[in-house]
């Protein structure tokens, strides 16, 4: 049995056409699953879980963006959610009654991504020539600052509407076709949650594609080189600051993109969605799944959206049943899980659940001596 499996898995020349056919078959199955997923989940668990799925896709996009910064280039960004916020507020301000501006989706979304990219460059330029720990602190501070501004820019001129946030944001729409309401296509009824799922899936696949392409390129090699040994990289002619800035800006762009989608999906944004918790959660996804490995990051994203959602539903009931009262509220439990996950993974499985082959070797082996 095992031998048969081995033979099956080993690629040899004669077997190559079969292999190819097999790959196509797997691809087709995956595509069908992904297409049918919202309907299956809707039928099995209810509409709420389709929305959870939509959020999972948004967070996967965020995690993949952060993965470029942390996983590829080895830079720790603790305020990543700030770029998410920039994208979301850009969309919210330019597509809501707040200013009475209603720009179309296909303009606002890239604009938000661009703005986030710009913020990334502004923040990265002064800090990226310094040691990595400074970047961690500065980004942490930046995340807080953005929130302070969002919270307070409601007076004397009301820009962000303060802690109440901005509501009645335009739904994502192309001309007359809006994702905000149920649509009928070819006789099939697509509820809003399903429509968003497909849109987000397209963007997620795009981000995955870009991530994979970047990783295996001249740029990706330069990122890996500075992560491995910044001094040697610079002595080989890599402009380390620019190449780090590039990673930072790419990550920020993806964050801004996800932010715009988030605003259009929720129809409402407030500073509360962009706190340190969210930054940490995204970092957790990257670390849990496996820094630098796209597959691992996707896995991490799914796990960390679904597990807390499950605990939210189950933890309360379980505690009620077992102890007769709620000792730990689900929110605390979630945070506790994140914190412990970060510690335990670094101590015991530093390369994550599904590491890239390269990062695994690197994180498990001791660092090269610094002298």
């Amino acid at each position, binding site marked *: 049995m095992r031998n048969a499996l081995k033979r099956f898995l080993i690629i040899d020349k004669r077997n190559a056409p079969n292999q190819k056919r097999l790959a196509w078959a797997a691809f087709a199955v995956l595509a069908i699953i992904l297409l049918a997923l919202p309907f299956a989940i809707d039928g099995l668990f209810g509409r709420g879980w389709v929305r959870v799925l939509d959020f999972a896709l948004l967070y996967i996009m965020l995690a993949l963006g952060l993965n470029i910064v942390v996983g590829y280039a*080895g830079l720790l960004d603790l305020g990543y959610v700030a770029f998410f916020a920039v994208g979301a507020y850009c969309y919210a301000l330019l597509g809501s009654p707040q200013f009475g501006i209603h720009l179309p989706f296909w303009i606002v979304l890239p604009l938000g991504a661009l703005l986030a990219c710009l913020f990334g460059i502004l923040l990265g330029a002064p800090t990226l020539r*310094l040691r990595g*720990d400074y970047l961690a602190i500065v980004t942490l501070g930046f995340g807080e600052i953005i929130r302070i501004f969002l919270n307070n820019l409601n007076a004397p001129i009301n820009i962000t509407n303060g802690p109440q946030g901005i509501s009645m944001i335009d739904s994502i729409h192309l001309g007359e076709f809006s994702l905000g309401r149920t649509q009928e296509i070819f006789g099939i009824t697509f509820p809003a949650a399903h429509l968003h799922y497909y849109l987000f899936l397209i963007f997620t696949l795009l981000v995955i594609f870009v991530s994979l392409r970047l990783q295996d390129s001249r740029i990706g090699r330069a990122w890996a080189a500075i992560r491995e040994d910044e001094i040697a990289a610079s002595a080989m002619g890599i402009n380390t600051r620019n190449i780090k800035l590039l990673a930072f800006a790419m990550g920020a762009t993806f964050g801004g993109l996800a932010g715009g989608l988030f605003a259009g999906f929720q129809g409402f944004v407030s500073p509360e969605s962009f706190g340190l918790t969210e930054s*940490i959660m995204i970092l957790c996804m990257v670390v849990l799944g496996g820094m630098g490995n796209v597959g691992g990051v996707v896995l991490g994203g799914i796990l960390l959206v679904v597990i807390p959602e499950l605990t939210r539903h189950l933890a309360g009931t379980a505690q009620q049943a077992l102890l007769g009262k709620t000792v730990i509220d689900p929110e605390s439990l979630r*945070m506790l899980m994140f914190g412990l996950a970060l*510690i335990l993974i*670094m*101590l015991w499985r530093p390369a994550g659940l599904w590491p890239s082959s390269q990062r695994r070797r*690197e994180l498990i082996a001791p*660092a090269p001596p610094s002298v």
Partner: protein
Amino acid sequence: MDIFLQQIINGLVQGSVYSMVALGYTMVYGILGLINFAHGEIVMIGAMVALSVIQLLTGAGFPIFFILLISLMLSMIVCMILGYSMERIAYRPLRNAPRLAPLITAIGLSIVLQTLAMMFWGREYHSFPLLFTNDSVHIAGAVITEVQIIIITVALVMMGGLLILVHRTRLGRAMRAVAENPSAAALMGVNSNSVISITFVLGSALAAIAGIMISANYGIVHYLMGALLGLKAFTAAVLGGIGNLRGAMLGGLLLGLIESLGAGYIGDLSGGFLGSHYQDVFAFFVLIAVLIFRPSGLLGERVAERA
């Protein structure tokens, strides 16, 4: 004029708290080259423990001085144990790991500590009991309260003590040796592991005191107080030159002054556009400015990485 003086006094008080916390960052950084992200949470835990002890003892009719002493001792002990275990559990196993690893565990630690504190002490703001009379001294139109005088005095004494410890004692010599060159220190018979532990313990003790001082000054304790405080104290350490004890003290005081003067005048400066709730952003801009113009800080020397 009196507003100006008042802001200076407030700044010095706030600054001396920053200094004490910054010392913790700087000591650990000097010895390990590591930013102990969870340091701010130790300050918070220190304040929380003191709060609980005071609440517990106040009803029992002990004299104020005794209550204060006990709460100070207990919160220092808790923090010292915490600092010690933190290093043992989360940092020591990763000493030879890539840089990113201890940074990530440190973040994890501070999340865990925050959450535990929230579960234990709740989400609400606690008012920190008034330990002294509300008496105050008036100087040229400005007011300085008794608590503030005590804060500044304690801070000065602690910092002086620390300087003496580091520069005049055997232990201090060992600490400096480990910071300079761990392998050479080991050759000279210094046990660098215990020196590192002691550094964490000392820093945590200072953090406990700082936690109590800041709570006494503002009269408020909250489970999230450590995060922002930590960020600011770290800024202070960078401003002074990270790794440099005097730098941390100077940086703390300066940051306190910048903040309080900034908050006092931000309205005028921005033509009324920005109000004093932007106080918290000053530290951040100071941090960015220092990193751009003088990354080695005011008193730090440029340390080139060895190639």
